[in-house]
């Protein structure tokens, strides 16, 4: 798992790469929460490099989602690979997250 933060317009774009599972979900949470707590109002999680996500990883996505809801910011996901999209679909998470096919679409919305 590896995360990279880039600023793109108003958005803090966090590029997530590799696997997010039980072993590194805590680390992932810390890195993403650091961005959330730095005051970013608009966050895009770019999942183009995300290979696998476990329920622990989903939990982190959910925590970020809840945080952003609480501070009235917005969290968007983009570029989910089919396998990841499937997990989001199966778990019903697709219905609570704003998911976009790519970064441009996410920023344009």
């Amino acid at each position, binding site marked *: 798992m590896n995360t990279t933060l880039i600023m793109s317009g108003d958005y803090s774009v966090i590029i997530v790469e590799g*696997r997010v*599972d*039980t072993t590194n*979900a805590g680390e992932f949470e810390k890195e993403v929460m650091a961005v959330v707590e730095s005051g970013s109002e608009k966050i895009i999680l770019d999942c183009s490099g995300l*290979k*696998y996500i*476990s*329920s*622990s990883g*989903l*939990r982190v996505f*959910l*925590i970020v989602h*809840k945080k952003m809801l609480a501070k009235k910011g917005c969290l968007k996901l983009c570029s989910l690979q089919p*396998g990841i999209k499937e*997990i989001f*679909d*199966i*778990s*019903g*998470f697709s*219905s*609570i997250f704003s998911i976009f096919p790519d970064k441009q679409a996410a920023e344009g919305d």
Partner: protein
Amino acid sequence: MKRTSLSYHIIKNVLLFCIALFLVIFSVYYYFARKTIREDTRENSVYLAKTTINKIEQVLTLAEKNPQIIAKMLEASFVSKDSLVPFLKSMLSVNDNLYGSIIAFEPYYYPEQGMYYAPYVYRQDDSICTSILGDRNYEYFYMDWYQIPKITNKPYWSEPYFDEGGGNVLMTTYSVPFYKDVNGAKTFSGVVTIDITLKWLTEIITEVKILESGYAFLLSRNGVVISHPNSEYIMNQTIFTIAKENNQPGMRETGRRMIRGESSFQAAEFRSAWKPGKLWINYAPLPSSKWSMGIIYPEKEMFASLHRMNFILLVLIIIGLVSLSVVIFKIVSKLTSPLKDFADSARLIASGNFNVRLPEIKTEDEMKELYNSFSFMQKELDEYMATLKETTSAKEKIESELRIANEIQMSMIPHIFPPFPDLSQIDLFATLKSAKEVGGDLYDFFVIEGNKFCFAIGDVSGKGVPASLFMAVTRTLVRSISDNVHSPSAIVESLNRSISQNNDSNMFVTLFLGVLDLKTGELLYTNAGHNPPVLIRKNGETFMFEKTKFIPAGLFEDFKYGESSLKLESGDMLFLYTDGVSEAENVQGDLFGEHSVMQIINNNINARPQELINIMGNEISAHVNGYTQSDDITMMTIVYNG
């Protein structure tokens, strides 16, 4: 590897160094010692030559005086003709070295004596005899001793000769010419001679000793050997005949120089047939008689003392090196003896005896440091082992607690199959395999209101103890809620509300909950974010349930869940599972996948519940191929026999 001791290495290196050092020192010493000895010997020999020549000269010059005085006396007409013989007799009587003396006159010097007049006084036995030489048979005018001084007008030493009449001794004759003043002109009048024995000369020469067998020899003007330790040479050989016999061009060259009256005090190499080995020679002429004296000494003897010294030195050095080795061995053994003890201690420590006694070190050196390190290691190991024991027991405690937790958790889910022997409508089998000691998956089933069969399968986010606690809460809530509420959506909504409250950890549970009417076969179900189950119709058709639009329970308190319905026919089967099945991973990271699940179901369409689960489990194991199980694996099959 061959085992060698430390002292062996040290001794070897020190000895090699010492030997190398000794060789260098010895070479230098030997070179200079040789040079000095050669120079000293040369000087000694030169000194000997000079003193010997002086000694000979003293005798010879003294002997020369007598005839010279007589010549002067004759020239001054100081003695009468009649007193000549008594005069000579008295001269001989006081000088033992003189064997004879002649005064030989020119013809008609004394007219009354006629042609020949040469009174001769000589020793015979112990008396002194007189005779008058000269007659037709003995024309002394033509003798060397007479003719040479006459022609050269100089005194003359004859070549030495053996006097056959006078006791066979080596003799030489010294002739001095005398003159008469005739009308103011010096006219040759005759010769005075003395015969002198050379016995003393041999004695002087024999006395010359240099080194062990160094010797002196004397050559006449013509190179005849006058004196030599090898008496066979004397008067029989010249240096040139010896050189020729022995084919020694160097010796001939030396001989030539000697009879030319040259002297050499720079020792030169010389070889002699008489004396083997390399020889050195010095030579110088005798000023009066023009003879030449040589001193010879062998090189071997020159360095004999040096070689003797070398031998002593070598013996001393060998003794020194041997004692050095012994001393080094003793010192090193003494210094390193604790090392062996340390090695023994280390072996004992390695075998677990941390409190082994260390060798006693009295010195304050590296051994002490080693001792300190060793005792530090002992202490640390001891402490480490104590800590390890503590941690191990703590870990064992946790493990045993986890084992108990696992038992409790397992006891919360039904695990007796078939569960309802009296309930002919239901055939069911389920398994749960946790990835860790305790897991977050769950399944449950029970009968409500007598004719309704409620079942659920779920997966808590995460794993381990937190997930297991969450799972226990979920399972308990489902049971207690369904006592009062019978619709799946209501049950899930109620569950969601309960667990969402104060859910600071943001954990959630996916859940598929169904209520089957055993009479009608109508199935009502709610899927809260769980993997869609598979429906296997009795006729062999298989369907995967639609994906849910409902999120897992525990996320949002007020979330509204709905429910769907489905009519089961007798013989239809449901296959429910958690994502541990579809996401079972092998070492390459390949997931088992839903398509594999569907494929296996299609290939085993008539399998019984337990049979299908076993097949599925085997296929998962084959796919994972020994790779660590990453998630809990739960499967449940329900057959409705309406």
